[in-house]
């Protein structure tokens, strides 16, 4: 916020300037009225005074334009800056953070909170400065140039306005809260009805559900009427009290005129000043509200920006590696107190494929998480190129190891751009090459827009298998030394899976691969297969070797063969 102090200063100076200028017209008007009344107006005086009014009017217009521009402009820039900071900060935070946080909450920081802060910085500051300076100026002018007695009498009702509107504010706040709560209940109700529409339709209760909705919705209405009842009080109250002030100033003014202390023109000026006072009185109650909200939001943003990623680069971290062979030596690893891996040791060598299989929850994905340093191993070591990955710059590690995760995520962009995500300057040939290796080229060409087809939320809907294959192509583009497929072929049919894996072997003989899979056919050709159960390696070896052992691997293999037959409609297609 401090960065903008210069613009704010200019804005505020202009604002005070406007407040000062606003004091002039009532005086001139009063003067003209007096001259008219005394029948002493000469055309010279008249034109001079009117010219003065015109100048003040124009000056006011210009100054008003600029203070708005400066103060609101600063608040717009502040909003932009906070948004940028948050975005940058989000890119720094690690996956552990994202697992703990809800997207909606994170979004709320960058939307509602930024908006509230920027509102405080704009409208809030404006209101504060404007109401305080204008209010003070006007009262001082009334006292010094017209009459302190009249000022005192005329202002008598105004404290009641402050009192009443503050009171309304509180009532409105609580009633509004009740109305909001009813509204969110209505929201939940609709959510439930829409999600449960099958049940409602199948039991024939739709009509009764509509009745229930009607009850809730009437309640929302009734609560909003309660809000309206307070809300509608503001204008009449202000009108009533200001009117009282007017009648007091005109009435008492008449007495003062009789006593020869004032002129009619001064009364006219005085009522014009009174009009200027209404706004500062109103602004005060409103101001506290805005500032309160802005401060709470600013605190939330500050707290968010203070969150540090849990895994950070060592200052001495290596920035180059002689080779990319990975050695995994995990004695044990636990999330909190819950041990998930024990005695897992293996090597990922150039050109070799490691298969990791096992039941859901056996610890397969944890191994991947350790390789990408989402978590650090305390009891054990993982080395790449002979160096402990904790001493390797994280960005370098990411360059060397490419992971295709279980949950494929595509951006709202063209397919080509999605594939080239990690290498934005890639040419079309490279993209097509990667798509071919991932066996998705044919699918893409069949789409009406080909590689230019938009995917993601607003684009075409692709099947899970197509998305998975595009994610694979995306990972292939980077040419990482180690490619990890974390159950990334689950939605791809067996035949396609086989050819993708075959492409890998032929395509890039230098690359090391880790294939984590549910379906054993994905790891059949691996150089070594690890079977994980309860965090331990219970079987290891090649496919042929493991088939000869009685155990999890062979049982699962048989079972999956049978499943394939059933899915094929009972015919033995293998």
């Amino acid at each position, binding site marked *: 916020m401090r960065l903008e102090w210069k613009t704010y200063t200019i804005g505020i100076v202009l604002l005070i300037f406007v407040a000062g200028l606003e004091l002039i017209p009532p005086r001139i008007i009063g003067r*003209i009225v007096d001259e008219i009344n005394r029948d002493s107006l000469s055309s010279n005086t008249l034109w001079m005074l009117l010219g003065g009014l015109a100048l003040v009017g124009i000056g006011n217009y210009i100054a008003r334009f600029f203070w708005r521009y400066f103060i609101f402009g600063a608040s717009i820039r502040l909003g932009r800056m906070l*948004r940028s900071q948050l*975005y940058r900060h*989000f890119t720094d935070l690690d996956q552990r953070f994202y697992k703990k946080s809800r997207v909606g909450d994170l979004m709320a920081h960058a939307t509602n909170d930024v908006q509230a802060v920027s509102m405080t910085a704009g409208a809030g500051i404006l209101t504060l400065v404007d109401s305080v300076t204008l209010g003070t100026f006007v009262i001082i002018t009334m006292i010094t140039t017209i009459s302190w007695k009249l000022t005192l009498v005329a202002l008598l009702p105004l404290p009641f306005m402050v009192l009443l509107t503050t009171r309304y504010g509180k009532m409105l706040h609580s009633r509004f809260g009740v109305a909001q709560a009813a509204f969110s209940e209505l929201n939940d109700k609709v959510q439930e009805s829409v999600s449960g529409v099958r*049940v409602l339709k199948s039991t024939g209760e739709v009509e009764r559900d509509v009745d229930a909705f009607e009850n809730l919705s009437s309640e929302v209405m009734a609560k909003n009427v309660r809000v309206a009842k307070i809300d509608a009080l503001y204008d009449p109250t202000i009108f009533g009290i200001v009117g009282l002030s007017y009648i007091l100033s005109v009435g008492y003014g008449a007495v003062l005129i009789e006593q020869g202390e004032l002129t009619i023109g001064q009364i006219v000026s005085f009522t014009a000043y009174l009009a200027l006072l209404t706004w500062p009185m109103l602004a005060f109650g409103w101001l506290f509200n805005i500032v309160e909200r802005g401060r709470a939001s600013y605190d939330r943003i500050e707290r968010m920006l203070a969150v540090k990623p849990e895994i950070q680069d060592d200052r001495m971290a290596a920035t180059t590696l002689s080779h990319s062979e990975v050695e995994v030596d995990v004695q044990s690893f636990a999330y909190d107190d819950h041990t998930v891996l024990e005695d897992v040791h293996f090597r990922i060598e150039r050109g070799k494929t490691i298969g990791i299989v096992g039941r859901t929850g056996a610890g397969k994905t944890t191994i991947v998480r350790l390789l990408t340093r989402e978590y650090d191993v305390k009891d054990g070591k993982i080395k790449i190129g002979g160096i402990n990955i904790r001493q390797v710059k994280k960005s370098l590690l990411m360059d060397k190891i490419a992971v295709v995760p279980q949950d494929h995520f595509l951006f709202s962009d063209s397919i080509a751009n999605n594939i080239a995500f990690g290498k934005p300057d890639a040419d079309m040939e490279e993209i097509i090459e990667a798509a071919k290796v991932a066996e998705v080229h044919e699918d893409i060409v069949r789409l009406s827009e080909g590689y230019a087809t938009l995917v993601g939320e607003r684009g075409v809907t692709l099947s899970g298998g197509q998305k998975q294959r595009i994610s694979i192509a995306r990972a292939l583009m980077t040419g990482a030394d180690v490619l990890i497929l974390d159950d990334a072929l689950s939605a791809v049919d067996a035949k396609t899976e086989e050819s993708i894996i075959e492409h890998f072997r032929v395509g890039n003989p230098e690359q090391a691969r880790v294939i984590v899979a549910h379906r054993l056919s994905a790891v059949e050709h691996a150089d070594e297969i690890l079977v994980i159960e309860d965090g331990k390696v219970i079987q290891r070896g090649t496919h042929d070797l493991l088939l000869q052992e009685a155990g999890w691997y062979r049982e699962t293999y048989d079972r999956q063969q049978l499943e394939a037959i059933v899915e094929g409609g009972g015919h033995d297609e293998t």
Partner: protein
Amino acid sequence: MKHDVQEWQVIKRLLSYAKRYGKPLGIAFVFLLIATGAKLAGPFLVKVFIDEFITPGVYPTNWVIALFTVYMVLHVSAILFDYLQSISFQKVALKIVQNIRMDIFRHVMGMRLAYFDRTPAGVLVSRITNDTEAVKELYVGVMSTFVQSAVQLVGTYIFLYVLEPTLATIGLVLLPLFWLIIWAYRRFSTKYFAQVRDLLSQLNAQLNESINGMGVIQQFRQEERLIRQFEQTNEAHQEARYRNLKLDSMLLRPIIELLLAFSIIGLLGYYGVLSMSEQVQVGVVYAFISYIERIFRPVLDIMQRLSEFQQAVVSADRVFKILDTDEPAPGKQMPGVAHVTEGEVRFDDVTFSYDGEVDVLKNISFVAKPGETVALVGHTGSGKSSIINLLTRFYPYGSGKITIDGQPLGRFEEQELRDQVGLVLQDPFLFTGTIEDNLKLFNPNIDSERAREAAEFVQAHSFIEKLDAGYGHVVGERGATFSSGERQLLAFARTVARNPKVLILDEATSSIDTETEERVQVALDRMRRGRTTIAIAHRLSTIQDADVILVLHRGEIVERGNHQQLLKQGGLYKKMYELQSGQSLMS
């Protein structure tokens, strides 16, 4: 231009809702007229006071008191009626919104299921609640402001004419000027506003996507590139807001204030020049200044509400689009009255497709005689669920014929069909409320006694009793606190309470804890007794005693018969059975 036409149509349609409230609106309008008149009389009375008493310096007590009394009476009635008109307008506005809300909710709930499959729940919820809320703002805030402003404007001019017709006529010049300013402001602000809004939603979409895809972004180390992209949008958004700000600063309040200043100059010039040739009453000058200020306030009010107004029109348009989407549930289509008497279900050569291209059911024929159990088995996508979707009349079928007791499905009244054909869903969606509420599900014909009997019948009673408050137990988190078996039992009880003649069971795929498994089995047996049952079975063990088992594959019935017959055939069913009973090919 085309945009304007559409906007106008939306407004017209919104206003047509107001027709129903002619009388209360009329009353509110009368209140408004009284309030405006009383308010505007104030400066006139002050004018009289100045010209008749202050200027000559005579104060006849009676007259002063009379004037003061009139002023106070008018003042108090202005306060009172201003409050009354405001509250009356708001009440009507809120009622109208309530109407719109009911219309859209009823309309959406009456749509066929295909519509729900296609439209994300979030979108529907947002239309029914948030968009109607924006429409509420339009009615409560904007429309009443417009009406009030217009009345005040007209009223003020009337008083000006009473005071000084010549000057009032000159003052009419202001009207085209106002119109010009509003027109210019609207012309530019519509565009800028749309830009700001679009860029903001783009900004939020980018942010949302980045948060969701942060893993991928970091994995491919594209943080800097995406920050740059975000910055671009962020900057564009800032630019658009700046343009908007400039426009607001130029054309909104400052220009109105400038115009006011010049009007006062004109006014004073007029009277100043006049005073040089004849006697001018200063009270008139005072009153004129007061009135002129009041002309400007409504214009400012209208302009400040314009953006809200546009927003609300966009929302209203979205609401109307849904109201215009006409995809009613299949419902009763044929004349005549049909009743379910015995519960014989017959599919005769039924072919069905969701999208009109790929047939998901091909030539399906089978009969379930009264009291019989027909089981449907097959892997995902084989067409089991589609059969149920047709029998429950959730989707209209293509060719072929489905009958219950010889009567075509389309001849049954909705309520008859729902009462007699009970569906037990895989996921027994539990609503907010107590267990008992969930068993009754709003149906007043089911009393607590019957709900309890149903629960006892399906053996859900014992676990319900153990909950705190028993049947009064409030279901939390959509029933996530219950085990899948318990949820199944509740679904059973819900259906049994309705005592249908035909039972459709969609068995849960998720495994059921062994503790409840047995009870589920017993309940299933009991429920099926005396009812025609069509059951989708995932675990073949549960349907071994079915009268007929239909094995589906790719929308066709590939095998049919009872358990023993199918095992003997040695086809798909046998393989599935082996797979499930844990026997492998090798052994």
